């Protein structure tokens, strides 16, 4: 046991003296959180909307003032004819246009239907669709308020974004960032650390010594285990205090699941280190094989439900997907262990499986 402690101490020396790696380890989550939290937002805001109000009656004015008071649009009113519209779009002066025909108010009162025209820049379909939705919602809300009763029974959808009342777009990515960071740090750095011993030739000396090989692996994994837990804490704290995310779930449960996932990633790192004797290859393998699937298959960048079924099946092999779901459930939805025990079991099973293979292969490659 004393030997193990000696080894662990050496490993900590290695980690802390490698400034660059430390920077990546702790800088990466901070950068990602800031990027995702503030700069990149999947919400569409500040859309330049050109309104041509040809009716100028009570209704159109009220709708327009509602639109102005929402955060989404930068409104500029012009009286422009159809022909000039295209020029305005091309010039980039507006990304959307709303046109009230001059019979708007009358149509509304007398015939019950009053068309308005919404024109959007279809070259970015996502934005276009969102614009249409926003405008339609505002108009329908207006309609429901003022004319709803006249139409008799009407089903008015009340929209609530569960677990995320403010429609805060940043929430989704925090579990994703956690999974990604832990995956990269644990897998890549652990595997590189082990392979480094092989490259340096010190591994040979260790094997000739009375030091048991399995303890080499344990000793190498422990500093990264500790640092990853620290990392996770930092991400959590940033999420709560910088981004204002509310942690609804049981914090110890959160830590337990994260530690489990960290061990899964460490096992993966061990497995990768068995496959190669070159640090570069180890790093490449870890990043390419681990990072890409984590980004694609966890569903935090792109929803899994949108993917073709074979992809969805493949995603079940990616440990990060299970962890991501657990974190979402516990942290954002506040669910307890009863809801995530299945995923925990899967993750635990994967860990045991990976560890067994990694240890077996380690013994025989020497």
């Amino acid at each position, binding site marked *: 046991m*004393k*030997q193990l*402690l*000696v*080894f662990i101490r*050496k490993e900590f*020396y*290695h980690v802390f*003296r*490698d400034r660059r790696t430390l920077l990546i380890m702790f800088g990466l989550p901070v950068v990602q959180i800031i990027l995702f939290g503030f700069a990149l937002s999947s919400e569409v805001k500040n859309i330049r909307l050109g309104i041509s109000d040809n009716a100028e009656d009570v209704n159109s004015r009220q709708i327009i003032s509602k639109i102005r008071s929402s955060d989404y649009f930068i409104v500029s009113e012009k009286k422009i004819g159809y022909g000039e519209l295209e020029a305005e779009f091309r010039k980039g002066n507006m990304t959307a246009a709303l046109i009230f025909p001059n019979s708007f108010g009358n149509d509304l009162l007398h015939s019950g239907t009053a068309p308005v025209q919404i024109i959007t820049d279809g070259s970015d379909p996502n934005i276009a669709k969102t614009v249409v939705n926003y405008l339609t919602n505002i108009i329908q809300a207006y309609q429901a308020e003022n004319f709803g009763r006249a139409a008799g029974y009407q089903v008015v959808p009340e929209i609530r974004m569960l677990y995320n009342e403010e429609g805060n777009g940043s929430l989704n990515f925090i579990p994703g960032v956690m999974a990604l960071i832990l995956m990269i740090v644990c897998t890549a750095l652990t595997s590189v650390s082990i392979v480094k011993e092989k490259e*340096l*030739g*010190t591994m*040979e*000396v*260790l*094997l*000739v*010594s*009375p*030091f048991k090989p399995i303890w080499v692996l344990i000793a190498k994994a422990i500093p990264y285990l500790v640092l990853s837990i620290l990392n996770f804490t930092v991400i959590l704290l940033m999420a709560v205090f910088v981004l204002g995310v509310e942690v609804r779930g049981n914090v110890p449960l959160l830590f337990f699941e994260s530690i489990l996932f960290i061990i899964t990633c460490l096992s993966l790192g061990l497995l990768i280190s068995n496959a190669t004797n070159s640090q570069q290859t180890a790093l490449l393998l870890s990043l390419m094989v681990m990072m890409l699937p984590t980004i694609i298959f966890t569903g935090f960048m792109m929803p899994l439900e949108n993917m073709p079924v074979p992809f969805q099946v493949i995603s079940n092999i990616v440990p990060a997907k299970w962890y991501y779901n657990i974190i979402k459930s516990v942290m954002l939805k506040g669910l307890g262990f009863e809801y995530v025990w299945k995923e925990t079991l899967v993750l635990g099973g994967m860990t045991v499986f990976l560890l067994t293979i990694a240890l077996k292969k380690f013994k025989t490659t*020497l």
Partner: protein
Amino acid sequence: MSESVITCTDLTKRFGDFLAVNHISFDVKKGEIFGFLGANGAGKTTAMRMLCGLSYPTSGKAVIAGYDVYTQQEDIKRNIGYMSQKFSLYEDLTVLENIEFYGGVYGMDRKTIRTRSHALVQKLGLLPEAKKLVGALPLGWKQKLAFSVAVFHEPKIVFLDEPTGGVDPVTRRQFWDMIYEASAGGITVFVTTHYMDEAEYCNRISVMVDGRIEALDTPGNLKKHLDAVTMEDVFYQLARGAGRSGDQ
């Protein structure tokens, strides 16, 4: 007659159809400096790995430091030291940290490590560098330090795998002084090398060719028997007819 610390009888290692080590037999006496020579691919490294407890022989017997190579590998490991070609030191650890690490790995207690490491550092003249990273040391110092670390726990046998690669002749000479000192202190030195002049420094040498030991004697006797002037000639004559070349 001093005792044998290494005894091999018909030691063999087979990889599938390939006989890397083909029934070699020899023994090494305590305190001896034993040179283990051979061309690349002759089976030297494979043989040494078996003696270090790194791999199991396919057949044959071997007793190292009194322990059986099949059943007592852990005991063997505790009683030997090893210095690899790449010097086996951690460049981003200090001199003292390296010494303390290996001392700890071999199960030495803190106090012994501390006293011995300070004595060692002083002897090597590395006191001003003791807290510096090993990576900053010149090659010759690293080599001497690596050897000292290999014998730090006072093993019965120390295995040196081409320990003087890339080092100038003066430093090599100094290195061999250290080897002599260890040998005089009762540590048996088992060394492989490509430098034929170093072969002269050994008490006895063996030459492996194609997995077999083709010669085993003192340098003087070998030169006499083969009518050679230098050890290089000895080596050429023995290894010339080799069928294998290059590292397998």
